[in-house]
């Protein structure tokens, strides 16, 4: 597993995982990755294992989807309950919960936005903030949009006014989608910055400042993007 490149800060989660080293079945020390070398029993994925570790990837934000999928398939073949039907009840239970963890891990890491949100939570120890008011640079625009939306909802869909409002909303939707794409491009840049910083692996104070900058900008961008994304979806649903 590729966890040589440990993150700059000591991670208590990983230490906990190291502590789980005894096979539940034969009590010998587990040196294998997912199976006890001695009795060949499947071992539970520790509750504390993060999704990156679970899938055997370092904490990077630019992951190759093909490699991720290949690893997911490989581990599915390892853990899926289908292959434990003839095993003991204990092994079946472990396989079931391991497969559930694996599926969650893959679902989270497969999507670049969810992956970044998850990394942010891991690194800063807090869940993402949910925006309830528009980002500052969008404030006016969103307020206008809300008015138009309300007007449209109240209007006769097939009237001239309805058509006109619908066209306005469509233009607005396209504009917001472009805005979202812009944010995503900015995010991709931050992802690259993050990976570069991690690859360098320096523990200098400069590196720490850079790390905090990336995480902060990422957090703001992510919550703004989610906000815009929700509005776009809402718009699409209203004028569909």
């Amino acid at each position: 597993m590729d966890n040589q490149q440990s993150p700059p800060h000591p991670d208590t989660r990983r230490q906990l995982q190291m502590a789980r080293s005894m096979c539940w079945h034969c009590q010998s020390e587990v040196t294998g990755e997912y199976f006890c070398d001695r009795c060949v029993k499947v071992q539970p994925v520790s509750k504390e294992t993060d999704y990156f570790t679970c899938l055997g990837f370092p904490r990077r934000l630019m992951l190759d989807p093909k490699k991720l999928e290949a690893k997911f398939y490989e581990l599915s073949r390892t853990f899926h309950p289908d292959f434990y039907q003839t095993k003991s009840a204990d092994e079946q239970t472990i396989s079931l919960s391991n497969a559930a963890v694996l599926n969650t891990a893959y679902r989270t890491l497969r999507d670049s936005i969810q992956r970044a949100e998850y990394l942010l939570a891991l690194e800063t120890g807090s869940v993402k903030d949910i925006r309830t008011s528009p980002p500052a640079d969008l404030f006016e625009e969103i307020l206008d949009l809300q008015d138009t939306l309300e007007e449209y909802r109240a209007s006769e869909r097939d009237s001239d006014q309805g058509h006109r409002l619908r066209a306005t909303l469509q233009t607005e939707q396209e504009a917001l989608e472009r805005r979202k794409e812009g944010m995503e491009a900015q995010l991709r840049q931050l992802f690259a910055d993050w990976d570069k910083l991690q690859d360098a692996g320096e523990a200098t104070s400069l590196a720490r400042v850079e790390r905090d900058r990336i995480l902060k900008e990422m957090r703001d961008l992510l919550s703004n993007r989610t906000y815009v994304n929700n509005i776009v979806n809402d718009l699409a649903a209203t004028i569909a």
Partner: protein
Amino acid sequence: MIWQQQSPKQLFPNILIFDMARIVGIDLGTTNSLVAYMKDGQPCVVPDRNGRTMVPSVVALTDNGLIVGDSAKEHLTRNPERTVYSVKRFMGKGLADVQDELVYFPYHVTETGGVIRIRLGQKSYSPPQVSAMILKELKLRAEASLGESITKAVITVPAYFNDSQRQATKDAGLIAGLEVLRIINEPTAASLAYGLQQKTQGTIAVYDFGGGTFDISILKLKDGIFEVLATSGDTHLGGDDLDRVLVDLFIGDIRDRYGIDVGRYPDHMQTVRLEAERAKIRLSDELKTEITIELPEDKGRFTRELTRDQLESLVAGIIERTLAPCRIALKDAGLTPKDIDEVVLVGGSTRMPLVRQRVEALFGKQPHCHLNPDEVVALGAAVQADILSGGTTDMLLLDVTPLSLGIETMGGVMSSLIRRNTTIPASAKEMFTTYVDGQTGVDIHILQGERELVKDNRSLAQFRLKVPPLPAGVPRIEVTFLIDANGILNVTATDMRTAKSQSIEVKPSYGLSDTEVERMIEDSFKFATEDVTARKLIEARLDAEALIKTTDKSLVEAGHLITEEEADGIRTSLSQLSTAKNGTDSRVIRARMAELEQTAKQLNVMMLDHSLKQSLQGKKVSEVS
């Protein structure tokens, strides 16, 4: 992984193989059911003596007991009130869910405890019990053909079946004496059979339009992994609905022409329904067909012509309804029609040319139907059975949950925990605490569906989380919702303060309770031989007679020792028991006997006293001690 390439079979060839009971694959269909197994690496369907592979999913109560399949199908018109068909539409449902279509069913449907019951003669059967009879027939067929006892099975369900419907199917297996090792989705089963045959790689769409349900599944096939990307459907949309359009047309015609309301004649309704089905099937090959229906009251026979064009214009709306789920599934998979490499057709209804046209138009490519659409699901179930028994290790199915799972939160809103199209097994954890000091329980309501409000979603179950009495907000109970590989929910809870897990008794909203299923398993053994039932009845009648006799005697001898009220109560119970004794239900007789024993308790005490005194009276004290 090295370990997995060396399957146990290879490691211990002599030990494991002989005690590995064979697992069969079963397609429990709305109209027909099939059983298949793996033979020399290829799945094959088990035929009956006449070479027929399909067992009609029909159960009839005759004078000689319950019969299933082809012979039962003959009773549809002869004995419509006692012949059950399309029972799959009732699986995991309450009466309110099916109210609109009850008019089309000649048999009597009621509800007890959130579960539909079907009346057959003197008894009522839940849909899982009726399905179990079909499963038993398949089990017998497989046993006869393979010459070994069959106790394990993989059973298929529509991909869009919810938790209650899946659980009901599992219950049916249990009642039939089958250990259901896996519930698998019909379109994915089909993809397994298909993938095995074609060694396909790429993205495929399985369009499964059966007798009662519609499913669409989009899968990615790569290196033996069958990953479902999205699934959607309608569990109340199938060939039955197409037939109904024709039934309505014919009934209207007959009313106009002869002034007869066929709806009042259940046997003729069945004739109309079967003729509608046959005409629909004929019109898949022919451009027009002749319909002939015998009329009630010796009014002769109704004939008319029906063209394929007419049929198509009548059912176009229903077929259109299958396309919306297709679009949703595509969207959920993040794909457009041109990303689909192949379209596979499954289910009898896909034989209709219009269905093929509409599917082709939507996906922009000609759909495949290399495998028999009636058999492909059972074949796939056999492949999955082989995977589970360790025979096939190069294929793996990664399926998804078709509906979002959530819990009720404040204000009747559903909070989603596991989104639809999440790969299963899937789990979600949720922490619960209390709002009031000393609160000892938290009520949790589990739901399935895509809507915002609780009332628009399907209620799965409710349970009460036990909480130690502590100040508000202090208890921390973590509840894990786990959807297993069958798509069935398992709930566990752990008190985070003590790390103790607690068992949860979940009350299903639309399902049989565990004890009820157990009782039905017992019952099913009873029904297996009518002899047993008959014997029970005879025994119960004899016992009842004896009880009536002794109670009568006691009343004469000790009646003066109890109150008039008590005596009256006993007389009522006595007459109720003699009525029950003349009936045919041994359980009713036993219940009445128990009642009588209860009401006559005081009398029996007095009677015992009385006879003791009497026997003492003639004796000397010295003789007694």
